[in-house]
């Protein structure tokens, strides 16, 4: 292999480092959108990789590893959400610090953009955890239904059903917060 300059970080296990490099961003994204907190998302990702270190021997190649990592991340995020619910209530909502330029109508003021982003965050936060989990995996991570089913250990039909209900509830919440049909379709 003609690689002449390689600075491999050896500690603590080369394989764990490689897996971290491959997955940390995706797992962080899932944890972040589920917990709405940067701090909690970091904790979740660390916890998942510390658990993986202990369980690394049971994985051969790629088989099952991805699903395991996502499952651990979702479970740890939902645990964190339960544990820190009270604290989270007072934190600045961050999960949907919205890409305002893309989200808000072109002529709206910065104040209006911030308002919309806050409303979107509030609407998502009001969804029950199972609905929030399917939306995060599907819309923020781009997973296929089969993959979501494997991660959440439910069947594909349930994924479709939860997603459908999640969108319906999200739409209701957004409408209740003043983001109406016309805006959604603009």
């Amino acid at each position, binding site marked *: 292999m003609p*690689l*002449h300059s*390689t600075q491999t970080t050896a500690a603590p296990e080369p*394989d764990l480092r490689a897996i971290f490099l491959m997955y940390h961003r995706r797992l962080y994204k899932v944890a972040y959108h589920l917990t709405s907190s940067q701090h909690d998302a970091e904790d979740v990702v660390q916890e998942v990789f510390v658990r993986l270190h202990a369980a690394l021997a049971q994985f051969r190649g790629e088989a099952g590893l991805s699903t395991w990592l996502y499952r651990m991340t979702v479970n740890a995020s939902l645990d964190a959400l339960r544990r820190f619910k009270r604290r989270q209530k007072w934190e600045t909502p961050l999960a949907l610090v919205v890409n305002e330029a893309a989200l808000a109508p072109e002529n709206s003021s910065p104040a209006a953009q911030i308002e919309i982003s806050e409303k979107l965050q509030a609407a998502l936060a009001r969804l029950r955890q199972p609905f929030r989990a399917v939306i995060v995996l599907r819309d923020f991570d781009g997973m296929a239904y089969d993959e979501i089913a494997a991660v959440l250990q439910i069947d594909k039909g349930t994924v*479709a059903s939860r997603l459908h209900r999640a969108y319906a509830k999200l739409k209701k919440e957004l409408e209740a917060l003043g983001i109406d049909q016309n805006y*959604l379709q603009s």
Partner: protein
Amino acid sequence: MKKIIALLHRRRWQQTLLLYVDGELPQNEMAPIDRHLETCALCRQTQSEILACRALLKNGGKLPFIPAEQMWQRIARKTMAAPSRWQKLGEIFSAPSGQTLRWAVVAGMILLGVIWGVKLKEGAHNIFIDTRAPVAAAAIDYGIFFDDLRRNAPASAFYKRYPAQIVKLTEAQQKIAFPLAAIETLPDSFRLDCVRVLECNGQKCIQFTCSKADKVINIFQHALGQAWTLGSYAVARAPICNVECLLVNASELTAVSWQGKYSEYLAVGDLAPQEFAQVVQMLR
């Protein structure tokens, strides 16, 4: 009762519509829905609501800066609490029963030193032959390419150093001396945008620029043994689809390198691990 049944039917139908929008339905079930949507305004309205909701979520999914290195250091500290291989080796040496072993190793090293000294005196410098190929002065340095990507700058510095010629896919094979990658075997979701022939030190390699959704992926194909480097970027090794791969991750930039049957590959792009696995699987 009729109302309940109608409600269940409606809910089932809306789920089917969601599966249709996501492309999760079998092909033979898509056509009837296509036809229905042409005539039913209500379903078209539901479909557009789903798409609007999707777009809103997609645009809202912006991530903050991820402190990857700090997270890794904390993970490393936590996992280091378990004794490493070197610590275990140290324990063997420090144990009373390891005394003999320790002296044997010291004696072996002294003997090796003496033999090396004698050989050097005889002029046989090649007691340890460096079997690695010498670093070619003009090896392709993908560190430059990565630097441009991280700065969101066009890869002008890279192409200035390594002249590139845009060619048609059908002409690419004539330019290189190794079998061209079967790039068309990648799933339809990967769209081939551009094929370039790069030249360095008299040798040529191929660059395929593809796009998937909004993401761009560059796949470089080299002859086996062609010299190239990743500059000072750190790499780690891991198997993907049972292929030994080198992984590079510099904050948001991700690259994977692997060796195929006739050539070596380097794929660079902001893809999900599953998407990289697809590429490795197809171009192995």
